[in-house]
């Protein structure tokens, strides 16, 4: 079912039912084979479930790309205290809009994935931390969880298997940093969402001080399909190191923006030209951010040789991140857009590490000065030097995320900056957040 656009290049695993409101209903979901994978998993036992996910090569879809099965295997094998499974549904990376769609179109797919994950890591409680702005997705999910309880797919003695797993939908309150795993845990505990120093890692000391595992929505949505069909089946798509399919969120200056599920390793140029119908208004491509605003920008030449998997993006000096492809045509004012991203990070910095708190605020001010036509060539050197000090010097990577767009933009689009500096004129209307 098309939502909103469809391409025959797509391979739909987790997005099969996008656009079909009936899929939210538990009866329809079960009729279509839903909760079959959960039953199968209960029959296999936790260790075998972890092994099948390991064999599929599934990697975390939240941005870091860490192998999911391996992450699960870090959890203690014996349950001496409560274990928790946390689902990260705090989607807020600029350019990313896949998790909201997964939740509102197919909530039971996520619930089933969560239950299988919880069973594999011997967790008795699942917290789905859903972004606060997602009122609709939250309501759909809450209703679906309620239905799962009513039909015996959650709570005590699930499907007569003797397994007890509770699910709670937790609503966030508007903070980008709560998408960072330890920030999310603090937020869940009723604290400010400030990331924690690691180690200890969540598998040892996580939410409420107990062993915890945290997975992205899309990762957990893939799990039921892998358990049903096997690890080899999932490996028929993608590459050796990046197997499977991935939702690509395409936004910006393309004719058909939207979510497209494609095999990993798909060529970026074909995604833009073929799947998304090419550039809007026939303009030329100027730049692409392939993984959400936290990754380096690439130019048209790099786009042409970029394959969209974890390794392919690294090969052109960027990262796949959460596969949020932001496309910019040649009418784009790069300086303004980078300034807007830096403003975002300055707003969202949790403030506990000095390089990030001070660095993001000063970077934003200098960027604005350049945009307003009051910058100097020396400002560019200051930016490069200052953002270099923001990489690897903080508890989490929000600080690094400021450096990535600024450094890559100055390296690749220096003439855009210089034009503004030399013209001494503002770049256009801009608003303060």
């Amino acid at each position, binding site marked *: 079912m098309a939502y909103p656009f469809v391409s025959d290049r797509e391979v739909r695993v987790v997005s099969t039912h996008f656009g079909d409101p009936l899929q939210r209903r538990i009866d329809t979901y079960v009729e279509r084979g839903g909760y079959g994978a959960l039953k199968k998993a209960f029959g296999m036992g936790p260790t075998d479930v972890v092994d099948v996910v390991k064999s599929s090569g599934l990697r975390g879809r939240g941005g870091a790309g860490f192998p999911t099965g391996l992450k699960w295997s870090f959890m203690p094998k014996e349950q001496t205290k*409560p274990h928790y499974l946390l689902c990260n549904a705090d989607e807020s990376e600029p350019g990313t809009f896949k998790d909201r769609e997964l939740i509102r179109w197919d909530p039971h797919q996520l619930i089933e994935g969560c239950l299988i994950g919880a069973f594999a890591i011997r967790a008795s409680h699942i917290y789905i931390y859903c972004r606060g702005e997602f009122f609709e997705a*939250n309501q759909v999910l*809450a209703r679906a969880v309620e239905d799962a309880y009513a039909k015996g797919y959650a709570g005590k003695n699930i499907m007569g298997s003797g397994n007890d797993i509770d699910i709670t939908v937790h609503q966030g309150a508007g*903070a980008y940093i709560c998408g960072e795993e330890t920030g999310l845990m603090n937020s869940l*505990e*009723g*604290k400010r969402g400030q990331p924690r120093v690691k180690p200890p890692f969540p598998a040892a000391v996580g939410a409420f001080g107990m062993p915890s595992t945290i997975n992205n929505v899309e990762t957990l949505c893939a799990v039921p399909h892998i358990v049903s069909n096997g690890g080899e089946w999932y490996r028929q798509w993608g590459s050796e190191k990046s197997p499977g399919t991935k939702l690509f*969120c395409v936004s910006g200056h393309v004719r058909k923006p939207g979510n497209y599920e494609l095999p990993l390793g798909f060529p970026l140029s074909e995604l833009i030209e073929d799947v998304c119908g090419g550039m809007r208004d026939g303009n030329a491509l100027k730049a692409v951010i392939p993984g959400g605003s936290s990754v380096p920008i690439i130019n048209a030449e790099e786009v042409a040789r970029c394959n969209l998997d974890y390794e392919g993006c690294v090969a052109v000096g960027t990262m796949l991140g959460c596969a*949020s492809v932001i496309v910019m045509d040649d009418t784009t004012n790069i300086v303004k857009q980078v300034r807007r991203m830096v403003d975002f990070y300055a707003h969202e910095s949790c403030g506990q590490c000095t390089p990030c708190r001070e660095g993001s605020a000063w970077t934003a001010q200098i960027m604005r000065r350049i945009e307003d036509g009051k910058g100097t060539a020396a400002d560019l050197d200051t930016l490069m030097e200052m953002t270099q000090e923001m990489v690897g010097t903080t508890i989490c990577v929000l600080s690094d995320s400021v450096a990535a767009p600024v450094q890559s933009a100055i390296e690749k689009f220096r003439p855009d900056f210089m034009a503004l500096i030399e013209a001494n004129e503002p770049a256009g209307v801009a608003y303060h957040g």
Partner: protein
Amino acid sequence: MSDVPFKNPGWAGNTGEFDLTEDQVRGDDFVGERPKHGGHASGAGTMPYMLAGKNPEGPLFEGEYQERFEKILTRYPTKRAALLPTLALAQEIRGHVSPESMDRVAELLDLSPAYVRGVSTFYTMYNKRPVGRYLVQVCTNISCNLCGADEVVEAFLNYTDTELGRTSEDGNFTTIEAECLAACGYPTCVQINSRYYENVTPAEVPKIIEHLKAKGGD
């Protein structure tokens, strides 16, 4: 900018379809009206809405709201963990979280008032002061910005005759910029109270405003 030819059966409707009721927009009665007491405890913490009808002096946590608060408490191993949902509950009733509400929440959860103040001010969704009947949050982050979000902000401010972050004279509209609302493929995305409006262009802003004015409450 993009002419997306779809009917979105979510609450996030195309702007041309905002006269439809929420049920009609969804094309489905899946969620329907959720009860004030919060329904099943697993989702009780997700209930808070941003309502047009606000009662800044309204009683906190009484009757069905008390019931919902108690359900929330049952879902966490610590009382502190109920803080975020409880603050949201206070905001649903009163429209914003005042220092007085924070103190009340602190008392209920055995936390210090200063701690609750510190947490509430960390999160952007708690309005620390009263806002208009409709809180208009326009995403101006990169994907929407590329497609003209700045002009949409300007259109809202012009049409409601107010400034960024201030409430219009009739008390109806407060417009602010929002960070990415995760609807990047449907720019510009505008969140008005609990609902997303997607693919909003400046030309459609007057229609949205007039519709909300005519609608009054929620």
